[in-house]
């Protein structure tokens, strides 16, 4: 307690110097918090776009073999059939849902005078969760089991298609011409990944019964898997798919062009990897700024020590031990760095929380795309920063303190 009084007395004597010293640290920690907050904002924003998506989805497209296999030539087209769907649904581990998609490309859809060229996709009711598309509230429903059972001629269109074909009227209940076939629109969907989607979704069974897709087979296969957490597990799983399907279609499991696989979880993990790198980068910049502040404190403490040489000489002559001098300087340094650092940290947190508040206030609840959200730092960052500040204080004070300790009392007393 007495020691703090001694320190506060000396600091009060030099208010301007104390302020200038502290300001550099306050600025450093302020920058650190703001930078990390911005990094978090970017990360959270992108995370929000992933959010709710079944990030464990794997998509497969048929390809063309590029390697000979068991006497078969290369250049064969692979065709997805019911056997593939059966394999995925019944013979693969970790599968939650598996769907096949029938693509009917370049279909002209029209309503009244408006028309456009779109792709029809035959899908079942699991498609909505695998693709993570959302129904626009108040605009109908997705394909259901009844549609599939009865081969109903219904269609779910995208928001963009609705704007083109129906302008301002509500398309639900309206009819769309697709060549000779008429579909009734039963819903409008939207998706974060593809706002301008040109896919009209129809029941899988309807597509099967109306269109002749047998030549090309199913357009693609989509599955959701669970229990794969590491990058290696994902890689292994992809290989397992290649092995099994390779056996089914007689292609080389190492022939990556025979079967195209896009694993969303893996790209999710890669994206997260980028953000970790950005975060690391921001830490380095932030800490760099902080170090500049610390060096500033250390520098000014050195000058302080020089200015107070005589005082330390007097203190030593009347019985101050080297340790007590050391404590005096180091604690003074810690006091400056941690109190000003706290101010900087509070200011930084205030700013980031303020920005967050502004963002929350100004974002409509049904906003589809975000790249910046919740730019705040966690409490554990604040704790790290506090520890960092104390460490900074010790570092900034140590060398000046060593210098003060090394002053010989006789020299100090004659110092003017």
């Amino acid at each position: 307690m007495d020691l703090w009084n001694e320190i506060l007395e000396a600091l009060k004597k030099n208010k301007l110097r104390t302020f200038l010293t502290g300001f550099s640290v306050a600025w450093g920690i302020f920058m650190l918090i703001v930078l990390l907050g911005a990094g978090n904002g970017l990360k959270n924003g992108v995370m929000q776009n992933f959010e709710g998506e079944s990030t464990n989805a794997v998509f497969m497209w048929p390809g063309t073999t590029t390697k000979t296999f068991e006497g078969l030539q290369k250049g064969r087209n692979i065709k997805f059939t019911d056997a593939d769907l059966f394999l995925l649904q019944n013979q693969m581990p970790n599968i939650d849902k598996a769907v096949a998609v029938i693509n009917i490309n370049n279909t002209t859809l029209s309503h009244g005078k408006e028309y456009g060229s779109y792709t029809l996709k035959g899908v079942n009711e699991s498609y909505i969760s695998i693709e993570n598309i959302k129904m626009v509230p108040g605009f109908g429903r997705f394909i259901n089991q009844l549609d599939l059972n009865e081969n109903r001629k219904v269609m779910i269109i995208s928001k963009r298609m609705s704007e083109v074909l129906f302008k301002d009227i509500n398309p639900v209940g309206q009819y769309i011409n697709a060549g000779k076939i008429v579909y009734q629109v039963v819903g409008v969907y939207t998706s974060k990944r593809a706002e301008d989607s040109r896919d009209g979704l129809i029941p899988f069974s309807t597509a099967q019964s109306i269109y002749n897709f047998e030549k090309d087979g199913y357009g693609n296969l989509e599955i959701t898997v669970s229990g794969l957490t590491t990058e290696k597990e994902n890689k292994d799983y992809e290989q397992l798919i290649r092995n099994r399907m390779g056996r089914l279609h007689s292609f080389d499991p190492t022939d990556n062009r025979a079967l195209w696989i896009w694993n969303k979880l893996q790209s999710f993990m890669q994206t997260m990897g980028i953000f970790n790198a950005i975060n690391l980068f921001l830490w380095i910049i932030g800490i760099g700024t902080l170090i500049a502040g610390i060096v500033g404190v250390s520098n000014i403490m050195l000058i302080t020590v020089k200015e107070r040489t005589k005082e330390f000489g007097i203190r030593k002559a009347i019985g101050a031990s080297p340790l007590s001098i050391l404590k005096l300087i180091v604690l003074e340094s810690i006091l400056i760095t941690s109190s000003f650092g706290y101010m900087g940290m509070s200011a930084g947190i205030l700013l980031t929380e303020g920005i967050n508040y502004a963002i929350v206030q100004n974002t409509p609840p049904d906003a589809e795309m975000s790249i910046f959200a919740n730019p705040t730092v966690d409490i554990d960052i604040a704790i790290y920063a506090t520890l960092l500040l104390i460490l900074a204080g010790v570092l900034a004070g140590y060398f000046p303190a060593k210098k003060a300790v090394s002053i010989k009392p006789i020299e100090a007393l004659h110092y003017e």
Partner: protein
Amino acid sequence: MIVLENVNKTYNNGAPLHVLKGIDLTIEKGDFVSIMGSSGSGKSTLLNILGILDNYDTGDYWLNGKLIKNLSETKSAEYRNKMIGFIFQSFNLISFKNAMENVALPLYYQNIPRKKRNAIALEYLERLGLKDWATHLPNQLSGGQKQRVAIARALISQPQIILADEPTGALDSVTSEEVMNILREVNGQGMTMILVTHEPEIAAQTQRIIRLKDGVIE
């Protein structure tokens, strides 16, 4: 009380300078001694060694029965705090502390609580007639007053000896007389007092004069 046996001290700044050449000296408790000598005679060095502010090369220095030799900085700080009171020519008060806090500072290093040490400091200031000036900063005090504050600071830890380095050097003759009266009075109460001066009239007021010349006692 103080015994020096064949104390030698050499400074090694470039060319070695043999400052003290075998000093033998005995000072008894309650003595009032002055050390005289021209500049370069080694009197300041001798005082620094007596005050444990500097070390010596060979010989022995006994203070109050304790051998003062090759002490750690911490130990010598402790001895200085408890056994020696310093009075300097330039007063050496801490500029941002008031008179009372300056006087109390040695007790701070004995871990005496603030209230208690300030109360003791006030007593000593009162003895030296400065009670009304207790809350003044050094730059608000006259030279004589500053030196009296310094004397109070030297006395407060009840040391074995008081070392005064030209205590009147920065004072006019009237104030010098005042300060010498105080020092004599303190000595009269049994305090051992060693005073370094180059003024013969000041030295004349002490009981014993030690004259140094070229590092030896004449």
